């Protein structure tokens, strides 16, 4: 490429030299880039139906769902404690929690002292209550997740077996997913500075165990199941009984279903 070394008034080279140079260089660079990229892409491709997990677990064979029967919950908080112990959840943050509703004709009172981890004290409401109940909550593992939609780097994702998780090596800690979750189930871990939430104990369910919260629940409030298993009790409940979901108007398609859900619960 011809280079001008001496500045002079209005000096120019022959008409096409500039454009030709540009085209030559540009095509060379672009060609090189294309060749490099296609070879890199070919090396990384693989069949999409393959299973990323080893040890005999195939994620194509499962599609998990969760049922909560709010009529049975006694608000003991064992689930919250078990989750914290199983997953090293930092204090002040909750992967699962319990809410208590005390409802009367004048209004309703809701509380969740420390997420219910130490149970509940007697309610100081001042409401003449006609009904009261507990509602366990956690990540809904939605099919149409608002959180995965907004993650800018693809750190949040949903697996083939229906579990929504966060890749804490990719997460940049921007907090967008925390803002986008309508259920308040996400938080930013103060130590790792990445987003975190309930994973349905993925490290347990891929070994055939149940999530820790389901494992310890003493009243059978929490039930975990597989929609791809023929005679799964959770599947039967979801398919045949009257179940509710939280914030249905947002069309997130949550996979946690509630039996006996009250209108006061959001």
């Amino acid at each position, binding site marked *: 490429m011809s280079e001008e070394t001496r500045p002079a008034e209005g000096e120019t*080279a022959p008409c096409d030299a500039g454009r030709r140079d540009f085209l030559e260089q540009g095509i060379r*660079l672009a060609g090189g880039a294309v060749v490099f990229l296609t070879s890199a892409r070919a090396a990384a491709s693989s069949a999409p139906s393959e299973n*990323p997990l080893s040890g005999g677990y195939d994620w194509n064979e499962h599609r998990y769902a969760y049922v909560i029967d709010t009529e049975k919950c006694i608000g003991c908080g064992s689930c919250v404690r078990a989750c914290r112990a199983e997953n090293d959840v930092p204090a002040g943050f909750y992967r699962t929690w319990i809410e208590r509703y005390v409802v009367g004709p004048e209004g309703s009172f809701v509380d969740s002292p420390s997420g219910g981890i*130490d149970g509940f004290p007697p309610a100081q409401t001042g409401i003449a209550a006609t009904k009261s109940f*507990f509602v366990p909550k956690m990540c809904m593992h939605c099919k149409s997740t608002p959180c995965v939609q907004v993650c800018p780097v693809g750190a949040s994702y949903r697996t083939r077996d229906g579990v929504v998780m966060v890749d804490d090596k990719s997460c940049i800690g921007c907090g967008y997913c925390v803002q986008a979750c309508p259920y308040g189930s996400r938080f930013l871990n103060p130590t790792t500075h990445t987003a975190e939430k309930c994973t349905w104990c993925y*490290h347990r369910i*891929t070994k055939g165990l149940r999530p820790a919260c389901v494992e*310890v629940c003493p009243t059978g409030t929490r039930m975990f199941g597989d929609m791809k298993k023929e005679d799964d009790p959770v599947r039967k409940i979801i398919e045949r009984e009257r179940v509710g979901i939280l914030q249905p108007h947002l069309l997130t398609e949550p996979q946690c279903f509630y039996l006996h859900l009250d209108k006061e619960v959001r």
Partner: protein
Amino acid sequence: MEHARHVFRVLLVLVVAVAAFVLGRALLVPKSYGLYGAYRADNVGEQARVREPRHAGPESCAGCHAKQAQARAAGSHKAVSCEICHAPLSVHVQGGAVKAKMPVDRSYQLCARCHRKIAGRPEKFPQVVLDQHVPAALEEGVCLPCHDPHSPKP
């Protein structure tokens, strides 16, 4: 076009920059990214191996603690996992061998967490008003003289 030479010079610089970016990006994208969706596929396996399961369920206690397991199975706490009142199995056993004593909580608060009468619990669930139920002052171990935690009556 001779007077537009500087424009082509600029465009060339741009093409170089874009090519450098594209090449650089191709080198930096994680290998397993995009296999199943817009995420790093390796993380699925990482999550499945993030830690060893800590809770093991009441069946795992029965092997060494048959007496308590039988009492529990025959009583009203048969649905209450050992790990609720004690701790996850991983605190006590690791690799098949005992590593530390399982914590035993004798406080009345442990029992009260489930059985104190508060708003919210189903009516049929056994719950008591503590001051009226206990004849003595509320202190550690006050429930134990009348109730065996592994098989409380009724």
